[in-house]
């Protein structure tokens, strides 16, 4: 029962989380889609996984919204690879989101409750 409830909760919780992890990946450094996927899966200890197709779709959307941009880089084989990075607006957006929604978990009172 608890496992089932946990899965249901996680399914809802993870919706909308992908953006956070993608932005975190791009905050570290500019990355291509494969690297973003690897970062997200590795850094979240496998809790988050994403399809490359859905990453491409989201990145294209963020690009139209001027949150993300890219540089094309030559690779030895195949077509140029796109390396995505956060624009100034993207950085500002991420900073304010983290400030309002993530940093609250670093408060001592909440942290104490979490590890209690």
């Amino acid at each position, binding site marked *: 029962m608890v496992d089932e409830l946990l899965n249901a909760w996680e399914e809802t919780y993870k919706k*909308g989380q992908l953006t956070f992890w993608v932005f975190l990946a791009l905050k570290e450094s500019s990355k291509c889609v494969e690297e973003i996927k690897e970062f997200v899966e590795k850094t979240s200890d496998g809790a988050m996984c994403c399809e490359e197709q859905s990453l491409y779709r989201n990145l294209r959307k963020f690009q*139209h*919204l001027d949150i993300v941009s890219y540089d094309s880089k030559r690779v030895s084989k195949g077509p140029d690879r796109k390396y995505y990075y956060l624009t100034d607006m993207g950085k500002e957006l991420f900073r304010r989101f983290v400030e309002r929604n993530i940093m609250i978990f670093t408060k001592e009172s909440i942290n104490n409750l979490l590890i209690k």
Partner: protein
Amino acid sequence: MKVFTLRFRQFIVVALLLTVIFRYVLNLSIGEESLSMVILCAFIYFCMMFICGWYFGKKDATENGFYDIGFRYHAATYVICVGISYVAYYVGLNTESLWPMTITALSWGIGLLVHLILFLIEQRKTIKGYAKDEIFD
């Protein structure tokens, strides 16, 4: 919002082609005074246009995610259908007469205007053409 996406441009090309073919077949059917042919080709044209809009519109939505409640596709269909019917009339092809053509254009135009108003209202729920509640899905 990027209006002329790849799928939308493809739709315009296919819709233009279908409409030109339809007008040509209609011209022949009216010339032969075959009512059944007129009805059949109009029905096939309607179905093909519907499938074409459905196919490219769905692909467009999946690839780009713009929230435009189908207005771009409706407007393009209107311009193509009405525009080509007038062109066909004035170049001397067999078509419906001018009055029913104008009535159709006006009544459809009112429908398109209502669609435009709904589109503009819905645009308030978007940022650069993306539905606000779907941007960070």
